């Protein structure tokens, strides 16, 4: 019952978002007051829907790659053989986070050219840290009695990892992915400065033509996407942590 109202609001936000992306013209009266007499109120240099989809795809690919690498590294450095790589991995991942994505774009363009690639690289590097740190925490703070029991029942190292350690660390790893994906959704907009197809295009077009309606609709679509995806991850985390008995 307590969750009903927020869920209704989320559903409403989703419906409005989809409606706006499919039929933006319906919303023209709302945005009209924001622009000067003859200027268009709805983005007209491409389909909002296809920009949104390619924005999501870019974020998804970058986050997926960051997850694979960060979780893989965390698994490695929490094994006895990989422990010595912990300081090195930490520094690498930290550099990825502290190096501004704009600078990454600037450096990547001469190497890989314009388009999606430099954006993917920037988002990937930027997204590593939260996932790595959370996976580290999740894998290194497992209750000792349970890790011990996994050994005691005769599981091999691989079986312990896949059957006990990863499932128990999953809620915390998911929280890391949630942070990473939310940051990437917003950061991806700057990819449009190097010709990546993202919702940043709408915002940049608005800035160039002094069209407040463009800026607002680009920003709002990103914001609503971020909130919905954030909430979806939170719900997923609650579900898996309930299963993992960590409520």
């Amino acid at each position, binding site marked *: 019952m307590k969750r009903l109202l927020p869920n209704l609001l989320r559903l409403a936000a989703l419906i409005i978002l989809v409606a706006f992306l499919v039929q933006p013209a319906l919303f023209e009266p709302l945005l009209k007051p924001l622009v000067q007499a003859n200027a268009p109120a709805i983005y007209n240099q491409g389909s909002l829907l296809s920009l949104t989809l390619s924005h999501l795809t870019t974020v998804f690919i970058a986050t997926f790659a960051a997850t694979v690498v960060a979780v893989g590294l965390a698994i490695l450095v929490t094994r006895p053989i990989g422990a010595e790589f912990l300081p090195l991995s930490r520094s690498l991942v930290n550099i990825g986070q502290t190096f501004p994505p704009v600078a990454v774009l600037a450096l990547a363009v001469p190497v890989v050219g314009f388009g999606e690639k430099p954006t993917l690289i920037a988002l990937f590097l930027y997204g590593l840290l939260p996932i790595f740190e959370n996976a580290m925490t999740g894998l290194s703070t497992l209750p000792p009695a349970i890790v011990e029991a996994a*050994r005691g029942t005769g599981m091999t190292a691989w079986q312990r990892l896949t059957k*006990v350690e990863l499932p128990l660390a999953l809620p915390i790893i998911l929280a890391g992915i949630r942070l990473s994906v939310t940051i990437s959704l917003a950061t991806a907009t700057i990819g449009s400065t190097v010709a990546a197809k993202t919702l940043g295009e709408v915002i940049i077009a608005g800035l160039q033509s002094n069209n407040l309606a463009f800026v607002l609709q680009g920003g709002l679509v990103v914001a609503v996407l971020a909130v919905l995806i954030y909430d979806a991850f939170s719900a997923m985390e609650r579900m898996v942590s309930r299963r993992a008995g960590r409520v």
Partner: protein
Amino acid sequence: MIEIDNITKRYGDNTVVDNVSMTIAPRTVTVIVGTSGSGKTTLMRMINRLVEPTSGAIRIDGEDNRGIPGYELRRRIGYAIQGHGLFPHRTVAENIATVPGLLGWEKSRIEAKVKELLSLFQLDPAAFGPRYPHELSGGQQQRVGVARALAAEPNILLMDEPFGALDPVIRAKAQEDLLAIQKHFGTTIVLVTHDMEEAFHLADKIAVMDKGRIVQYAAPEDMLVNPATDFVETLIGVGERPFRLLSIGTVGEAAEAGTAEGEPLAAATSQRDALSSLLWSGREALPVVGADGVPLGRVTLASLARRAARPR
């Protein structure tokens, strides 16, 4: 048979288990007692190689336990961990099925085993099987922990304070169940406890540990009569000696021919409990009956008093 041969474990300069040698006969219950930190858990975990010894060897049925990979060894040895250690993301049934699953048993065989064990520990399989460990009480969790250790019918069962969190009634029941299982499967059990009452009740032999050494390893009767050191004597408790002696035997062994009035005692009752019943009922004698209710005779205060006296 488990042969522990000059086993030592050091962590840095700290000698946790100090040159321990002991032989554990097959199909017996050996109880390890001693103060906290005396090395009981460490000694036990070297048997299934959760801890590797610094020096010495352990042989199981004549074979060095380092002859096969650790995980394979551990699938053959049941281990009920201090503080249960159930997997929180798996149901009770899945927890119990862990080792049979690793050994590749057929599904139907695993299901039957899980049912059998849950029933044995007074947990309704339909109600408890699908639950998660955090939906169980501490005592129920502990019983599931023991059930998991028994699931693959191991020849050897290591138990680290398995009944710590149980209330006295369930605890007594769990001890009886354990002895019944031990007799039924002929399991060799090594059990660590802090409860001397439990030690004397369950043990064929008791090992007393102090600062990493075994100070005495003997049958309970012998230990009562000839405690090796003051430490052993203190652990037993001087005032408890006659009662400890009685708690070793059953009333069936003390039964004599004849009849008596009053509430009959089951033959499996310990002599100590029988003494209690006699004193409380104010009678000189009570009838003794077998498991099937067949009269076996009677037990008298006088005979128990004789048995409680220091053996010579």
